[in-house]
Each structure stands twice: as C-alpha cells, then as structure tokens.
C-alpha cells in the first residue's frame, strides 16, 4: 500500500511528469531511508534497486493508474535504442492519489516534506547524480563505517559500479546536505 502511495505522490509532485525509471527508483529509495522502511533495495546495475518498487510500478501501470510514455532518441555505441521513460498519472491515477492524500494526510505530508527537501538539494533532479548518491549511501550503510574516497570507489567497483572521484565528491555533497552521512 505505502509503495503505491509513494509512487503516485512522487509523480504528482513532479508536476505529473516523472522522467526516468532510475530517477523514480532512487527517489523512492531515499524516501524509504527517511521513512525508515525496508522496500527490499539491493545492488543493481544503476545502483540500489527494489524489485518490489518495480513490481508495484508495473501493477499501477497495468491497472491503468499510471501512463508510461517511451521516447526514443537514437542509438548507443552498442546499437541499442536510447530511450527515456516518462510517467504521469492518468485521471484514475489522480483520483487514487487524491484519495490517499485525503485519507492519510500525515504520511502524505511526510513524503512531500522529504521530496521538497531533496529537490532543494543541488544534483538531486538529475538521475545520474542522484543514482551516485544512492550508490554511495548504500555502500556506507552496508559497510557500517566511514570510508575514504578511494575506499568508496573500490567498494563501488565490487558492486559493479564505476564511480569516478568527482562523482564521489558530488554524491557525498548530496548526502551531506540531506544529512545522511
């Protein structure tokens, strides 16, 4: 229930246009961190990833609450289509969101506050930097201790994540601003 409500709320708060699956996954990740909820995040190609969030998104789409718009823009070096996803609430999705907001104002307010706090932080609107911040937070949380820049890069590598020094600096800045370090 909560994951559904979070996804609907995040799309609503993005002016009904949330661009990118990775951005959505990472925004829900940080929301879950602040709400102290375990949504089953684990390491994946683009950073911490939750199959439960993915399944819930799929369910909301299949029930007709979320519209997914895919844009294609050329090819990458492997010949794959480059594509981006944009999620918006359908009329029914909007109704469901409003029902949630009305029935559980406290949770809605918490999500809105966390979201606004994230948006005020430089770099969080970009899925790449937000993803790096999520990776670094995952690494720091898993290790349970403070790590140097090089240790973080090495640890990221062991998860299959390539992060350069500048990205570590940017990511740590985001975490500092969000008071997550």
């Amino acid at each position, binding site marked *: 229930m909560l994951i559904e409500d979070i996804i609907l709320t995040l799309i609503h708060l993005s002016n009904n246009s949330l661009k990118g699956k990775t951005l959505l996954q990472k925004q829900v990740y940080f929301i879950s961190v602040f709400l102290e909820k375990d949504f089953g995040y684990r390491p994946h190609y683009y950073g911490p990833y939750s199959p439960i969030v993915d399944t819930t998104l*799929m369910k909301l789409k*299949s*029930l007709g609450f979320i519209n997914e718009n895919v844009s294609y823009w050329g090819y990458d070096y492997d010949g794959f*289509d480059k594509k981006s996803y944009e999620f918006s609430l359908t*009329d029914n999705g909007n109704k469901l969101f409003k029902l949630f907001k009305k029935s559980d104002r406290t949770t809605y307010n918490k999500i809105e506050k966390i979201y606004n706090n994230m948006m005020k932080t430089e770099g969080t609107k970009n899925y790449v930097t937000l993803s790096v911040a999520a990776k670094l937070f995952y690494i720091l949380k898993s290790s349970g201790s403070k790590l140097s820049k090089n240790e973080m890069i090495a640890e990221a590598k062991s998860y299959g994540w390539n992060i350069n020094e500048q990205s570590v600096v940017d990511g740590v800045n985001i975490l500092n601003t969000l008071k997550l370090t």
Partner: protein
Amino acid sequence: MNNGREIRDPIHGFIFRSEIEEKIIDSSVYQRLRNIKQLALANLVYPGANHTRFEHSIGVMHIAGRLAEKFDLTPDEVRLVKLTALLHDIGHGPFSHVSERVLDKYVNSDIVNSDVLEKIHESITCQIILEDNELSHLLSKREREQITDLILGKSSNDLVRNIISGPLDADKQDYLLRDSYYCGVRYGVYDIDRLLNTLCTFNDRNITYLAIPNESVYTLEQFVIAKYHMNTQVYYHKIRLITDSMIVRGIVLGIEVDDIDWLKKMYSYDGTSDFIQNYINWNDSNFFTKILSEENNKSLSYKYFNALKNRKLHKRIFTQSLPYFKDAEVIKYLSEILKFPNVINEIEKEIAKFLSDYLKVSISKEQVILNKYMFKSVKEQSKDDEGSIIVLTKDNEKSYFEQESTLFHSIDSKQSDEFLEIYAPIEYSGKEDKEKKKQEIIPNIKKIISEIAKSKISKR
C-alpha cells in the same frame, strides 16, 4: 560412474544414475510421483500431456548433474545437487501445483510457524525427506538436512543453490522442454546443449551466481522466450485455467459443504508426522477413484470431479483486465479481491442468480467461479524473485540480461495485465447463440461486480 544404470528419456536421451539414485527412485515415496501428473489436467487441452513428476524429477537430476560436472564440483557436491534435484518435487500432492492453493487455504495456522506458512509445499517436501522411513535408511540425517537446506534456499553453497533454484535452474531447463514435448507444442524448445555449454559463474561479493557470457545472450533470449510462450500457450491456456479452478472448487466444496473427512485430513497441514504419513498415500489416480466412489455420489465435489472426468467443463463467460471496470476505487479494490473470500462468494451468488433468471436454468452459487490472476510481461518473466539473470560483459564485468539483450532491451515493459474471469456451466447451441448470450451476460456481470465492490468500498 554410470555402472550401466541408465534410463531412456525422450528429452535427454540416456540418463545415468548412481546406485543411491536408483534406490531412491525405487522407494515407494518416489514411485508415488508416477501418478502425479506434471500439469494436472492439461491433458484435457493437450491430450499428450500425461507426463508426471516422476520423469521430470529424473530430468532435473540429469541437468543438475551436467551443471555440477561442468563447474567441477566435488564428488560430495555433485551427489548433493543431484539428490536434491531428484527429490525437489517429492512433496507434490494430487494435481501438482493446484493442490498448493488448497493447502494454503486450510493450513492450520495456529500450529505451524510463519516461515512454514509462506512455503507450505516446500515444508511438506522437506518433512517427507527428513521423516520418510525408506529415505532415512538410504541417506544419513546430515545428508537429508543438507538437501532440505538447499530446497529451502538456506544452503551457504551458492552455486549449488543456484543450480537448484534461480532464474536458470535445472528445474526450468527441464520442464520447458518436457512440457513442450508432451503437450506436442514447440513453444518451449530452446538449445539446451548450447545453454549448458555457455553457462558460467560469476562471483559477486563472495556469492557465486550462474551467469552467461555476453556473446551467448542469444541462447538465453531463446530460453526466456520459450518460458514466455509456454506461459501464454500452455500454463495460462484458457481451458487449463478453468480446469484448475474447477479442481480447487471441487475440493473446497468437498471440505466445506460435503464435510468429507479424508479431504479435510489431506489438506489441513499441521506439521505433524501423521499428516505426512497420510499425505504420501495420495496421488491423482486414487484421489479420482475415491472422490468418484459410490459413497460420495450425492456430493457437490462428486459433481465437479465427474464433470472433469467427462470433460464437461465450465465456460469462460467473462474475462476482462481490471481497467475495464473504469472506476479507480473499484479497480483498486478488485486488484486485492483475493483477500476477501466473502466478497467473492457474494459476487458468485449474485452472478448465479442472474444466470438462472436469464437462462431459465438452475445455476447455484457453487457452480460459479471467480478467478483473478496476473499475467506478467515477457520482460518481467525473464526475472524471478531472486532478480535478473547475470550476464558477463566482454570486460568480464557484471551486467544484466535486460541490459545486454538487444531484443529485450527494446521490448516495452508495460504489457502486464491483471485479469478477472468468471466460469460457469453454460451451454451454447451454436456460435450465434454464444454471441447473443455474451452480449447480455458480460455487461450484467460487470454491473454485479462493480456494485458489490462499490458497496464494500463505501462501508470501509
């Protein structure tokens, strides 16, 4: 060491078995699998689908053995992985997976703990392995515990665990080919030799996974598509959904209305040895014989199983994906309807009333079945609960199947649907009659379901 102990298998050719494997296959508890069909009553759609858990389990053992040898596992590990594969389905009851739905419904949740509640079928399997007399004489306690740990996913040996359970496990590799062969379809066919040859391992943070090198992604695409096509054409075939639902309804009526003691005993899992001792006596054949016995012939369960025996099947009179109901709250409520059995009963009762009035025949609420299920997109089906299939890039780095497959990368992921269906014993005199009746039935069923859902929502 094959010692000439071979079995001829239509899928894998000769399968060699060791002395201990042979003794297990010869045990009564294993021989019972000869009478448990792999696909329940799918033979009512595909007449050839009469294969059983017996030969499937031997096939899984064979593939697990090939994988174990490929990865140079120790002789002890090879023995463990093959025995686990051989015994992994020993806990199946009559009609294979269909039984699990009934077990879930009648488990004695006051007695068994919450871990067991989530995996009743696996728990029964493990209990049989740990407690069966013959198996206890053939395998040491330690070995039986290692096998049950593997089945429950508790083993610390990752590679062995991945061979038994995961997106590329030996079970899937066998059942796709076997089910395809016996159903007489070609949807499940993939190049197993190529797949087995190319599978490799990947060590990720001290956990060893089964993986596939980037250059062999095409073989994997074929495997994933085979799984998808088998789902659409066999496992979710319209008639199969109806027969499975009729089996479940027949058993439930036998327990709740006909008050049949032996049925209650068979499905009320309480974790005791008495339950297991009784459970392992049952299979598809003696179940059918018993439920269709003279003493039972006035019961509702008899009617259901007699209809199944004679292939007098219910018709699917309503099938819609949930957005068809238009109203946001109704759609949301219906997506969770399986949590509310009383509401399902109410809907079935009202539909029965409508059908009786409209068709001028007597249709009882017990004869109407509501079924709800989700059909995942092909992209979703490439994963399992443990996550995506790992692909090794040219630089030997970790990637994922959906990233590396050109075909799957381009597939739109949103084509998953939740369906709500109604089955009932309706007769049509011809195509025209069918169309005419459907035009009347479908909107009325929609109205009944919507109204009941709305009334429940308003009372929340």
